[in-house]
């Protein structure tokens, strides 16, 4: 809600400064979004009357005017405006006046005629309205009056962020009520009553959809001069509220909407055939709206219709077929109360947000319709004295209008909720200032809110009003007991923290990427998974929910490579989204949302530095990073990596990560075809792991340390290069049994002296007995057995 501060001040006798007013608005819940000062200049400007205006003898486009400014003799002023004419009341800048842009008025001679002062246009006075020519003041303006007193130019435009519960504050009247509530300044509503001369001329109104339209008022107004200029003060206020002036009738309906909060609509009477009917639309009915849109309606849309056609989408926008235009003479003026959800549903379904729908869906005062239509008629008659008004026809289904029931407000509840005692007189005073009817009763009060407060229905609503107006700042702070609730610490959270630190310590930086990605990217990585589509994505590159974290990581890598980065290690922890049914009804969303970890490593193992010969990072570096964190939570025996194909990974350099024989993740090199797709020059290593294993408490068991010496034996074997280390390692351990403490692979060699297709591996075996010292003979025999087993299983040869 954007409005002129001066307009609001005409409703209140409030001595708060602008700053104070804004602060108060903000703390009571009507947050000031913007505040703009409009400094109009009007030093030495008075109201004048053009007594005569004749053509300049030496210039076609100038007039020589005789202007009465309330002094003994009238002034002669040369004026260039087309609209200057005898009888006008105008703002006159006297000699030495200072106008907007610091223009100083001096006595001068124009084409031989002396000119003493200037008749001003709106823009010369620093006003918002942009009428061409000089400003025409109402004829009742008092000649000689200082213009600054006649019309306050110094104004501020205040924009308030009105929360959806406070539809009642979407008008100057509503804001004035709020000012009254928080400031105790009295409120002085302008006198809206005027003697509307009405005739019996009526339009028949039939309300079929009573539920959706419990109150409808309408009146015929005839003989309007639609070409009449809207008075500048109305235009000025409309423009300050960002409403574009259109024509006299529309401007007045908008003005009353801003003033009282009741949206009005005017139809061209000659375009209506027969009765006015308020009904639900028929399925498939079409309406051409004022904004040029063509809308096909359904049966839950409320419309205003005549005997033949649709006139308006009720509460939202008028139709083109009944529009006010430059030929309009007679109008039908509507003022209604529509059901809130009906309007809200329709306006959101069709994305039609108008000033009217904005108010109707938040709730317009159901007691305001008749008053608003009278107010608009008054204004119209004031401006255009020739128009004649028909009788207002009110069709009201009183039983369907929203009505408040008295609410029981308990003293004890106020104290309990706010944590403080509010005195009875404070409670009553605040409620009274909010126009609530208050009756004392046992333990509290019965409170009846005013008709325009749609947000007040239960006791807590009243407690909120009390707190808000009393002031949140004045409510004390009080400590609460912080006893232990049901301690049920999620182990996975702690584990996740530890996991993150491990990755960071291994040089990985954490990234956060979007949970939605481009569909093509998604299918490059996981073509076998059908992703979940957003119905309303922001853009096509954020259209589907990720089933994997890998695409996001690759995008981050590409982003950095494009910025000349060469070495990076990233990880992300986040949910992925799969349209699979959950095994158990753990949560009732039928979408699987596993928490995953993924990492990526590109570039050298070491940053470029002295004293270390760097090399490209490879699979085994990443494997080490993975094992470093895995073994924080599970034991070595539980984890196995096996060659496993993955769509995004190099078919020969990718592995499945198995935890107790369950596949929990993958690790490998980005497939060269993807690597070239992303124009990455170096090999990229990736891993992704489902983190549900973190939900388990870490199972640590101490193993006794032998007090007896251990023995190390190194052997070198020549084996087929395709032999899997996993199997070899397992075979050695099977033979070695409990005596074999560890097997370390400390060299791998191919080349000279090694037959083609083979490799030489060097192993260190460590033997130890828990109860005694091993002797040479048993170690030798154990070693022989191991070598024999490897010969049998893998045709391994001892290298000598």
């Amino acid at each position: 809600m954007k409005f002129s501060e001066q307009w609001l001040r005409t409703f209140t006798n409030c001595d708060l400064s602008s700053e104070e007013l804004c602060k108060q608005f903000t703390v009571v819940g009507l947050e000031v979004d913007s505040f703009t000062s409009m400094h109009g200049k009007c030093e030495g400007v008075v109201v004048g009357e053009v007594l005569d205006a004749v053509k300049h003898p030496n210039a076609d486009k100038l007039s020589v005017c005789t202007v009465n400014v309330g002094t003994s003799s009238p002034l002669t002023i040369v004026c260039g405006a087309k609209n200057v004419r005898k009888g006008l009341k105008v703002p006159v800048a006297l000699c030495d006046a200072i106008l907007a842009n610091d223009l100083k008025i001096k006595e001068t001679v124009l084409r031989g005629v002396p000119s003493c002062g200037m008749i001003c246009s709106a823009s010369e006075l620093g006003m918002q309205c942009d009428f061409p020519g000089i400003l025409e003041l109402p004829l009742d303006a008092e000649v000689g009056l200082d213009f600054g007193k006649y019309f306050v130019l110094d104004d501020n435009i205040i924009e308030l962020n009105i929360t959806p519960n406070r539809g009642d504050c979407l008008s100057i009247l509503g804001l004035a009520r709020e000012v009254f509530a928080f400031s105790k300044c009295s409120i002085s509503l302008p006198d809206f009553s005027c003697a509307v001369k009405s005739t019996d001329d009526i339009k028949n109104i039939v309300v079929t959809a009573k539920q959706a339209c419990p109150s409808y008022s309408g009146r015929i107004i005839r003989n309007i001069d639609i070409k009449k200029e809207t008075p500048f003060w109305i235009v000025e206020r409309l423009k300050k509220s960002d409403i574009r002036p259109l024509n006299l009738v529309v401007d007045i309906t908008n003005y009353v909407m801003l003033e009282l909060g009741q949206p009005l609509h005017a139809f061209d009477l000659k375009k209506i055939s027969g009765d006015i009917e308020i009904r639900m639309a028929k399925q498939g009915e079409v309406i051409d709206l004022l904004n040029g849109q063509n809308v096909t309606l359904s049966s839950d849309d409320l419309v205003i219709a005549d005997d033949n056609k649709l006139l308006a989408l009720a509460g939202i926008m008028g139709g083109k077929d009944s529009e006010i235009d430059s030929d309009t003479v007679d109008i039908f003026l509507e003022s209604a109360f529509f059901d809130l959800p009906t309007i809200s549903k329709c306006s959101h379904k069709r994305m039609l947000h108008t000033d009217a729908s904005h108010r109707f869906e938040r709730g317009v005062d159901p007691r305001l319709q008749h008053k608003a239509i009278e107010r608009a008629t008054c204004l119209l008659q004031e401006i255009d004295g020739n128009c004649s008004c028909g009788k207002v026809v009110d069709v009201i289904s009183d039983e369907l209008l929203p009505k408040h029931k008295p609410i029981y407000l308990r003293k004890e509840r106020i104290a309990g909720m706010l944590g403080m005692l509010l005195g009875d007189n404070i409670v009553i005073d605040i409620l009274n200032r909010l126009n609530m009817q208050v009756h004392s009763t046992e333990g509290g009060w019965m409170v009846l809110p005013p008709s325009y407060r749609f947000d007040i229905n239960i006791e807590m609503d009243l407690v909120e009003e009390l707190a808000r107006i009393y002031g949140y700042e004045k409510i004390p702070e009080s400590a609460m007991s912080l006893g232990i609730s049901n301690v049920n610490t999620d182990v996975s959270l702690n584990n996740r923290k530890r996991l993150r630190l491990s990755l960071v310590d291994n040089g990985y930086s954490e990234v956060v990427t979007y949970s939605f990605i481009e569909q093509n990217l998604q299918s490059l990585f996981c073509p076998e998974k059908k992703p979940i589509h957003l119905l309303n994505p922001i853009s096509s590159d954020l259209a589907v929910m990720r089933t994997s974290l890998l695409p996001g990581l690759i995008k981050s890598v590409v982003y950095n490579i494009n910025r000349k980065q060469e070495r990076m290690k990233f990880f992300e922890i986040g949910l992925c989204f799969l349209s699979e049914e959950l095994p158990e009804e753990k949560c009732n969303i039928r979408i699987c949302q596993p928490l995953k970890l993924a990492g990526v490593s590109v570039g050298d193992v070491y940053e470029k530095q002295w004293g270390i010969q760097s090399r490209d990072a490879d699979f085994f570096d990443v494997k080490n990073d993975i094992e470093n964190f895995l073994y924080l939570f599970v034991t070595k025996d539980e984890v196995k990596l096996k060659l496993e194909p993955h769509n995004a990974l190099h078919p020969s350099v990718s592995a499945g990560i198995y935890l107790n024989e369950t596949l929990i993740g993958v690790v490998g090199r980005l497939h060269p075809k993807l690597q070239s797709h992303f124009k990455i020059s170096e090999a990229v290593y990736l891993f992704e792991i489902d983190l549900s294993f973190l939900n388990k408490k870490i199972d640590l068991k101490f193993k006794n340390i032998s007090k007896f010496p251990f023995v190390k034996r190194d052997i070198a074997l020549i084996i087929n290069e395709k032999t899997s280390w996993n199997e070899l390692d397992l075979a050695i351990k099977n033979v070695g049994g409990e005596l074999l403490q560890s097997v370390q692979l400390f060299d791998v060699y191919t080349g000279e002296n090694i037959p083609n297709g083979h490799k030489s591996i060097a192993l260190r075996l460590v033997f130890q007995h828990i109860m005694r010292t091993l002797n040479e003979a048993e170690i030798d025999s154990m070693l022989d057995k191991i070598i024999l087993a490897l010969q049998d299983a893998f045709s391994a040869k001892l290298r000598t």
Partner: protein
Amino acid sequence: MSKERLTQLLQEASNDILKADSSVSLDRVRSLYLGKNCVLTEMLKDIHNLPKESRREFGQEVNNVKEKIQSLLLEQAEKIKAEKVLSCLNLEAIDVTMPPRGNGLGSLHPITRIRNEIEEFFIGIGFEISEGPEIEDNYHNFDALNVEAHHPSRYMQDTFYFQNDLLLRTHTSPVQIRTMENGKPPFRIIAPGRVYRCDFDATHSPMFHQVEGLVVDEGISFANLKWIVRLFIEHFFTKNMKFRFRASYFPFTEPSAEVDLLWTNASGQSKWLEVMGCGMVHPNVLRNVGVDSEKYSGFAFGMGLDRLAMLLYGVDDLRMFFENDIRFLEQF
């Protein structure tokens, strides 16, 4: 053969010993003065040429000289050893100011850092951490939170939808509902996580992070809420941070408030900045999860983690959090 000769000998030996600068040259001096055919041995051999009564005394003196030479040798050997160690140490000198070897650490995302800090504070005062799904249903994200179907408040947040009434949660508040559905009061939880809204510009990201807090117990009041907010702000920011409560509206709390901080930027300008929405849990919300609102009351609060991170670290463009520029990430 005389005492003078012995004194002279001792003097010569002492000079030679002090001149020796290595263990080899010292050995040479040793064999010269104490070796098999050294002067002292020769002197002792010639002792029979002395008168009988002086032999004992002379023998004694020769031995004294021998001992003195020995101790000088020992002393010099120590000295040579010490010098050798010292010169070794000097040889091993390095420039300690040179850059270290190896790789540096990675970094936690700034939002994780903020989240950790907030979690630690609340865990410290007895809260639990609670999490929930990011794809939610209408019921948990809206209905149960008293956000009516056709009320404008439903449209306060632009929602991403899927088929079947599913959506991306627009706030972490559904975690409140899930927690209360599955437990009994008292509740003291915070729920951090990702949330989504259909909005994208320099100050809005379609994905961002919130942390939600919920306390439900007997006798919980707005005054308690004010107290805990102060504790938090003083912990998270500084002791004297100025802040204010102002009235606001959320469908799931009543009374509702926004908390603004009086924030002074780098150029010294102060401005009220919204950092937290909060309020007393709406009785309809308690009713929806089967908590008796006459017996229990509670408060809830929510903050944008990204916004806090921007404030705290002085980041002025929200999008930087999701671009993952390594030069940005490495600073945290």
